[in-house]
């Protein structure tokens, strides 16, 4: 890049303004009861820098950014803004300083319009036509088109994030905190986001970027601070690291490679015979003539782009939605198509739905209570003669949390207080610990960091090798090829023939996912 031609403010600030950090966090400590979430954490963010904050789930990243944004108060340590010590007592004060935040779980008001949502974040501002014009202008300018008058409830996840970002931008921030912004985006939406972020950085705005996706951190970020178990353990220039070395810094030791031994096939455990399910929901997918056989000792993965019948297939397998004919779903030789979930569980089946918070676990209930919810009728004596034995449930919580390394602040926390990855480990562990003969699991590692994902995947493989039949419904092809013995693809409610994973490639599965399943079926017929 020649002198003066492609130079921009961001590059200049990073070079010249190198002495005074925009934000400096010094030895910050935050405790929740006896649990220390941040232990003498220090961090320096330069103007115009895209600064990655890396760490596993529960490493303390979210706590740290909440302290910077004023939603939490530290127990010790200090925060310097442009070299001067400041106290950030509330998010409003953080915004006044010039700190904006895009939340991981969106903090938007669903019943309100885009303009109203943005007005709420700006001081003394009403949702006027003038504001709508500004929103339209700024959003188009940054390649984030938005209709100021649409209601949040009608927007897609990607569009909602745009609202958050535009809301941030209108406050003219000098630092934007982004908590796992791409975890909810499609690859195309993520690429668009990176363009916006680079442009912001080039204009001198610093970005504190939290992500699990090390590839994108390498491509995007200028600097990285890595946290592990509440402490800062390393600083790095992501461009000089590989994904593996970064992951190693995060996890602290060699990444656990998932080991897949050869399968020893047992008898047929799951059989779907011409499963057809007409969807009554206008947005649902109708399942057509699905045939699948899974034997004990193997994992069959069902790949597919979201919304091609995965939810309907899971519901038919788990019994959330009884199917048309009893014989369409057969577990271990028994026709279960009309049985409810618990009757299927009694036959040795277990189910892990896709949405961990709200479907897999009740947010406001403790972990032990969540154990009771899926295991009260499995003949383990957790519920007897109308009484619940919470002692027993508590022991299961202890076992699951230690086996799966679920990090929690108190002995028996509410499900919603766990971070996403920890809750996912718990939800999977709760079923795996029962040693089911049949396991149906949807998106087992969605939005989970590498360490936790490895633990979950390994547990699925081990379970199958100990004589369980497992169906994994997943959109993550890396995961599928890591754990599956056979792979089938679901597309528009039809399932392709399950083929040996060794004979398939990512490209081939990708092609099937894009809608080749039915043509292939037609060609074979």
């Amino acid at each position, binding site marked *: 890049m020649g002198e003066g031609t492609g130079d921009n403010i961001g590059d200049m600030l990073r070079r010249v303004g190198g002495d005074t950090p925009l934000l400096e966090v010094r030895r910050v400590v935050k405790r929740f009861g006896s649990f220390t979430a941040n232990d003498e954490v220090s961090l320096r963010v330069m103007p115009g820098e895209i600064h990655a904050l890396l760490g596993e789930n529960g490493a303390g990243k979210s706590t740290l950014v909440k302290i910077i944004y*004023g*939603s*939490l*108060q530290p127990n010790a340590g200090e925060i310097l803004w442009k070299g001067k010590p400041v106290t950030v007592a*509330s*998010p*409003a*004060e953080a*915004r006044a300083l010039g700190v904006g935040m895009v*939340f991981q779980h969106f*903090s*938007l*008001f*669903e*019943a*309100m319009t885009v303009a*109203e949502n943005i*007005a*709420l*974040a700006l001081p*003394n*501002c*009403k*949702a006027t036509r003038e504001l709508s014009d500004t929103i339209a202008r700024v959003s188009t300018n940054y390649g984030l088109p938005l209709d100021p008058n649409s*209601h949040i*409830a009608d927007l897609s996840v990607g569009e909602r994030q745009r609202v958050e970002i535009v809301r941030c931008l209108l406050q003219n921030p000098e630092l934007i905190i982004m908590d796992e912004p791409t975890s909810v985006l499609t690859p195309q939406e993520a690429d668009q986001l990176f363009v916006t972020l680079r442009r912001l950085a080039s204009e001198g705005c610093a970005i504190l970027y939290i992500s699990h996706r090390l590839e994108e951190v390498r491509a995007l970020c200028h600097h990285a601070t890595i946290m592990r178990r509440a402490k800062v353990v390393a600083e790095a220039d992501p461009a000089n690291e590989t994904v593996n070395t970064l992951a190693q810094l995060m996890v602290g030791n060699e990444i656990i490679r998932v080991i897949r031994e050869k399968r020893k096939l047992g008898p047929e455990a799951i059989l779907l015979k011409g499963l057809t399910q007409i969807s009554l929901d206008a947005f649902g997918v109708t399942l057509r003539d699905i045939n699948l056989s899974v034997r004990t000792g193997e994992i069959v993965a069902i790949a597919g782009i979201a919304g091609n019948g995965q939810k309907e297939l899971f519901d038919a397998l788990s019994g959330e939605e009884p199917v048309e004919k009893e014989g369409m779903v057969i577990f271990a030789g028994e026709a279960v198509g009309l049985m409810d979930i618990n009757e299927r569980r009694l036959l040795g089946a277990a189910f892990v739905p896709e949405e961990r918070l709200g479907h897999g676990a009740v947010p406001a209930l403790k972990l032990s209570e969540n154990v009771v919810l899926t295991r009260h009728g499995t003949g383990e004596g957790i519920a007897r003669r109308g009484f619940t034995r919470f002692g027993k449930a508590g022991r299961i919580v202890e076992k699951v949390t230690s086996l799966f390394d679920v990090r929690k602040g108190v002995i028996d926390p509410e499900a919603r207080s766990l971070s996403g990855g920890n809750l996912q480990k718990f939800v999977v562990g709760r079923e795996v610990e029962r040693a089911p003969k049949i396991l149906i699991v949807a998106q087992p590692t969605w939005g989970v960091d590498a360490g936790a994902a490895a633990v979950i995947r390994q547990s699925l493989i081990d379970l199958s090798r100990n004589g369980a039949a497992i169906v994994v419904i997943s959109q993550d092809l890396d995961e599928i090829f890591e754990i599956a013995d056979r792979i089938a693809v679901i597309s528009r409610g039809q399932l392709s023939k399950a083929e040996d994973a060794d004979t398939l490639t990512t490209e081939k599965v990708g092609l099937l996912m894009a809608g080749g399943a039915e043509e292939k079926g037609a060609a074979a017929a």
Partner: protein
Amino acid sequence: MLEAIILTIITAATPLLLAAIGELVAEKSGVLNLGVEGMMVMGAVAGFAVTVSTGSPLMGVVGGAVAGVLVSLIFAFVTLTLVANQVASGLALTLFGLGLSGLLGESFVGQPGIKLASLDIPGLTTLPVVGKIVFGQDILVYLSFAAVFGVAWFLNRTRAGLILRAVGDNHASAHALGYSVIGVRYLAVMFGGAMAGLGGAYMSIAYTPLWVENMTAGRGWIALALVVFASWMPWRAVIGAYLFGAVTVLQFHAQALGIGFPPQFLSMLPYLATVIVLVAISGNRRATLFNTPSSLGKSFVPDR
């Protein structure tokens, strides 16, 4: 005849409208206060007591509002500061209000009250047909309409109203943006208390200038039902209040005319209508989402 019926409908509808508008604001901020009946009856006894002691019905109106606010503050403290269950606390507030008003009002039973003066503009009030209806009402009737205007404008046009709706829609997000969820809710509950107090005062100063124990006779509950009936929109509350006011009045006329219609059935109508409206709006997920405050009845504890 028609004029007389309309005039009585207005008197029947006004206390409902006052209390409903107040509760609507409280619910828009996310607080479900089932103590409307208790606040109304306290407003009624306080309004009557102040009127009789000072000789001024206007002072009585103020007294009713103040009493409503004071009672609502108990509810606000218990549910917002001490984070008790809103449903249980609201029910308790109603029982408390009914009991306390009976105790305080014991010496006022049977005493003659003073009726709140009606507007009398020479030339206008004497106009045929519309004169008495439009220009001959008392101050609380006009106030009830002003409140509808004011609340609709406040909720939809002002920044404070936007914040109040935000708190009711998603209190966690509102807190994350730095708004005082508890503070906003205190104010909303107090407004609800003031309006319920006015509704009660209307009963004992304007409707029938008397104090009788339990004189609100379930109007607080109808006001609560009205808020849902109106799907939290001020304009629909007017329609609801006048509809239910009309039903009450027509029920008397029907009885007077000797129509053998069970009065219990008519008293049931407001609740029946509310159930039907609830079923109707729940069918439309979008409309439900946009109108119903999502945080309604949920306690808020800031995470720090």
